[in-house]
């Protein structure tokens, strides 16, 4: 059974500039929601969340009692929160079982960041807000954090992830919102609707280069040069060896143009050059990413329903 929890947050303005609009949110129980925005809005949002009695907020800079061992820390939290449900062996799902006697100041920063989430397991509040859960984590730790988030979801807790990194929340959450001055916008629903309409269009002449605009200049790129293409709020950007070039074409037009060149629509808002894909990363059974082999290390989200198609193209 799922039920909805509603939250209202008043708007916040500084000298007439709306920093954050008033928001009304309806959250399903047991789902992971991502909210993408800039740091100022997110800071305001976390402050509002933390004053709500239904919400537990896990800040990114929450500290530790460095002189305690992990075991002592957990028994302290158990005393503090007195959780009614037994979580089995928390250390195993945190993958810290071999470190239970280690003092907290001896842990690596990735391990500390993982351990931070233990607060979300201990408290009983229905909504858990976590600020930047995946920031600066290596792949192994990201996978553990993803599993932790899924076990929170299994406990019928609503998890809200706040991040200013779109890629991270796209693969971690069930639904993603974008906080703008105009309000909380669900991401990319519009894009999907138009996709069905434009499917049957036939383009008589194929102009192969991709026009982009930068500094008032129009630059044309050969498709094989492109790493991937991202659409954020209707603005389509072409990524090419770490540089971004905005283009006026829509993602659907680009998809049609580029499919013959070995490009693949791996996500509602991403098209990736398959020639540059180095690795398919499996976070959990439902979330995947593509790691690109480019000058900088880039990771592009891969939706679950596109995976089947991709496997067919690759031939596995």
């Amino acid at each position: 059974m799922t039920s909805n929890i509603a939250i209202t947050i008043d708007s916040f303005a500084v000298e007439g500039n709306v920093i954050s609009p008033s928001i009304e949110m309806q959250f399903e129980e047991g789902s992971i929601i991502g909210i993408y925005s800039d740091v100022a809005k997110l800071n305001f949002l976390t402050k509002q969340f933390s004053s709500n009695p239904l919400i537990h907020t896990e800040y990114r800079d929450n500290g530790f009692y460095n002189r305690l061992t992990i075991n002592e820390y957990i028994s302290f939290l158990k005393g503090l929160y007195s959780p009614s449900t037994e979580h089995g062996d928390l250390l195993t799902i945190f993958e810290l079982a071999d470190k239970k006697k280690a003092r907290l100041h001896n842990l690596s920063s990735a391990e500390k960041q993982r351990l931070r989430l233990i607060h979300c397991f201990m408290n009983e509040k229905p909504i858990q807000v976590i600020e930047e859960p995946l920031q600066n984590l290596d792949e192994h730790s990201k996978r553990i954090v993803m599993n932790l988030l899924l076990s929170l979801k299994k406990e019928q807790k609503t998890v809200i992830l706040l991040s200013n990194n779109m890629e991270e929340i796209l693969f971690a959450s069930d639904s993603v919102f974008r906080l703008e001055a105009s309000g909380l916008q669900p991401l990319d629903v519009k894009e999907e609707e138009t996709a069905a309409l434009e499917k049957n269009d036939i383009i008589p002449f194929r102009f192969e280069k991709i026009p982009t605009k930068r500094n008032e200049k129009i630059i044309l790129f050969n498709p094989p040069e492109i790493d991937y293409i991202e659409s954020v709020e209707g603005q389509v950007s072409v990524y090419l060896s770490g540089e971004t070039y905005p283009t006026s074409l829509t993602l659907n037009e680009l998809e049609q143009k580029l499919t013959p060149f070995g490009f693949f629509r791996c996500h509602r808002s991403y098209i990736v050059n398959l020639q540059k894909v180095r690795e398919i990363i499996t976070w959990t059974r439902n979330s995947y990413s593509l790691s690109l082999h480019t000058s900088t290390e880039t990771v592009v989200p891969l939706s679950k329903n596109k995976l089947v198609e991709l496997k067919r193209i690759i031939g596995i």
Partner: protein
Amino acid sequence: MNLTRIHAIFMKDYKEFSRNYAVSTMVLLPLIMALIYNQTGIESMQGYFLPVNPAFVAVTSFVQCCLIAEEKERNTLRSLMLSPATLFDILLGKSLLVFTISAITIILSVYLVGYNPANWLILGMALFLSAVFYIGLGTLCALFTKTILEASVAILPIMLIFSFGPFALQLSGKYPILQIAEWLPSAQIILLAESIEQAYTATDIMVPIITILVWSIITWFFTIVLYKKTMVD
């Protein structure tokens, strides 16, 4: 108020305190002072309290202040406040630990300095009330400090006023204004200790005890009001 939470905070702070040598070695200060004064010989009641009054500041107030300041320094106080533990649970858990540490330190230093009071019960009561006052003072001090470093600086004026205040009385012949130091809790406890060694009346006992009690009530009142004000936001 929840005993499990208070116990959890007590145990956590005990472990943190015992492993933080910068703070925990402070308990040695009054003990060493007591040993030295014992060797040099003591002729007045003022002398017996030479290790006791600094112990109240250097151990009781300082440790309490450091425990809270360190939570602020590491951003752990915020998550503690967001947990089900109330402000009262947090302060009580810490205060109980500090009280235990101070009680052991002060009993040991009284023993080491060679002081044998005529009436343990009355002196014990005054020492207990003083401990309550100095814990409150440490808590109040932590409100204005954000790191252990700041706490060690902030403790200095308190040390000067409360530990060495009774010495100002000796200058009061020359500067009558210093007579006011008589009403410090550290001076009152010496007056009390002096009177229990002789034939005493009820007033001799009640005045110092009530003075210390008033100091504790005022300190804790301000502490709680200010904490409620600053911790809410």
